[in-house]
């Protein structure tokens, strides 16, 4: 068993529950012991940094201070969310690069009886741990049900491969780590050119048309490559591409139906876990069809809402959008 300090981040408890469930389902198989940082707080996402500098960094650093106090032999913090990972890494990096910032942040932390020495923890993303610590050979050896016949678009988003302060990734724009992991699971992996493009971040809440265009590009790309599913390593990317897929379709008169899954969900499937244990069914764009390709039954969620069937054939005349059939036959 290898011990790691674990910073789940807010979305793992709510919008990315499937990520949390699937991760917890595979930790034992991978002999990964994740010790949750006690009483951790939000990292501030991309919002606090744009308001106040010292408070934003103090907010992030409280987690680092708590983690260090709890370290017990392990000095590696693992974050599964890209934004959390980057914020934690960023605070550590900049407090070293600009000691005045570190001093001020520590003065603030003092008000809570805490202290963090910059550089004393290693901050890493979950994918990095799985690839570089656990290793592809080990992962491959645990596969009992290879994902044969499933076409997967590997999607990393921005904040894992960039800015990459510690130079851990093979490339900033076309890293191959996730591809290799998915190949080890037996999946058919497409060479996805948009793998590190932006999902829109917080833009659905700020400038929807900007966000929808970024979401459209990714869905269009995955569709062009005939991917059955798009796999992400980030709760924010999953949320934008999954939950806003319908609104994006309405905006552009398209009809994309690409399930967006977490890479840990596919790992669980390949390790022979039941889809239900892995948070399947929580996605808004149903992954049932994709699962059926690898011989698994789709999960009907208890609350799948269906419209009552219209009995009369002549109903309200509805316009038939040409894009529905022409763009995505």
């Amino acid at each position, binding site marked *: 068993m290898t011990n790691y300090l674990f910073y789940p981040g807010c979305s793992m408890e709510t919008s990315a529950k499937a990520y949390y469930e699937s991760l917890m389902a595979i930790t034992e198989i991978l002999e990964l012991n994740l010790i949750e940082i006690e009483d951790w707080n939000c990292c*501030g996402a991309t*919002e606090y940094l*744009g308001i106040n500098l010292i408070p934003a960094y*103090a907010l992030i650093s409280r987690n680092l201070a708590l983690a260090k106090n709890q370290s017990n032999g392990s000095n590696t913090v693992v974050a599964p969310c890209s934004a959390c990972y980057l914020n934690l890494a960023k605070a550590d990096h900049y407090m070293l690069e600009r000691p005045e910032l570190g001093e001020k942040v520590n003065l603030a932390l003092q*008000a809570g009886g805490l202290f963090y020495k910059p550089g004393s923890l290693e901050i890493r993303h979950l994918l990095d741990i799985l690839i570089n610590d656990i290793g592809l050979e080990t992962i491959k050896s645990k596969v009992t049900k290879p994902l044969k016949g499933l076409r997967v678009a590997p999607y990393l988003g*921005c*904040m894992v491969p960039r800015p990459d302060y510690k130079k851990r990734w093979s490339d900033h724009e076309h890293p191959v780590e996730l591809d290799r992991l998915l190949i080890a699971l037996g999946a058919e992996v497409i060479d996805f050119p948009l793998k590190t493009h*932006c999902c829109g971040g917080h833009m659905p809440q*700020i400038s929807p048309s900007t966000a929808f265009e970024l979401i459209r590009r990714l869905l269009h790309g995955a569709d062009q490559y005939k991917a059955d599913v798009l796999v992400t390593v980030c709760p924010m990317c999953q949320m934008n591409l999954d939950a806003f897929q319908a609104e994006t379709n309405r905006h552009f008169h398209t009809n994309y139906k690409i399930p967006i899954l977490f890479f840990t969900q596919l790992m669980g499937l390949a390790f022979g876990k039941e889809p239900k244990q892995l948070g399947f069914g929580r996605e808004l764009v149903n992954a049932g069809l994709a699962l059926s390709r690898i011989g698994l039954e789709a999960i009907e969620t208890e609350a799948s809402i269906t419209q009552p069937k219209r009995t009369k054939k002549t109903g309200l005349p509805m316009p038939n959008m040409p894009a529905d059939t022409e763009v995505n036959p």
Partner: protein
Amino acid sequence: MTSETVSQNITSPPLESNPNLRFLEEVSGATAGVARLEMCIQCGSCGGSCPSSADMDHTPRQLFAMVRAGMREEALSSNTPWICVSCYHCVVRCPQEVHIADVMYTLKSMAIRTKLYKDATAPDFSATFVDMVETYGRSFEFGLATRHYLKHFPLRLPGMAPMGLGLLTKQRMDITPNRIERIDELKRILQHAKELEAIQ
């Protein structure tokens, strides 16, 4: 902004009393890490790499030229920092290693402080998010979404209802916030941090 206004600002004789001459220093000073903004060679790699530049008033390159020319009001009222999606494409491509994304955060916070932003949607979103975090220690998506969408996107709500309902029924959104245990400790830290920031 036209290119003439930029050149006017660059060539106009420096006035001792003009606080805008120190704008570049101010921006660098308020940025985490070493901003390296003065190293910019105006190559435009940033704008060319930017996935959202089409919606920006100015490309990052133009914006940095404005900052260096001391065009405080124009720079702080540009929508560019607010349209930046923090994807770090420009950051890894910049030949001068300017901390572009962090400079954008700085310009946002300065625009909030001086109230020079033109559209309140993004500043309001950040403020609401931070408000939730300061109150509970965790983000609270349901509270954030309802408050923000009611104020800024009420017309999108009917179309978004199925998504909201989906997130609720699939238990991907809690209607009550999660709190951290030692919220008082966090509040003391943030309060002290704000006082330290005010001294700068």
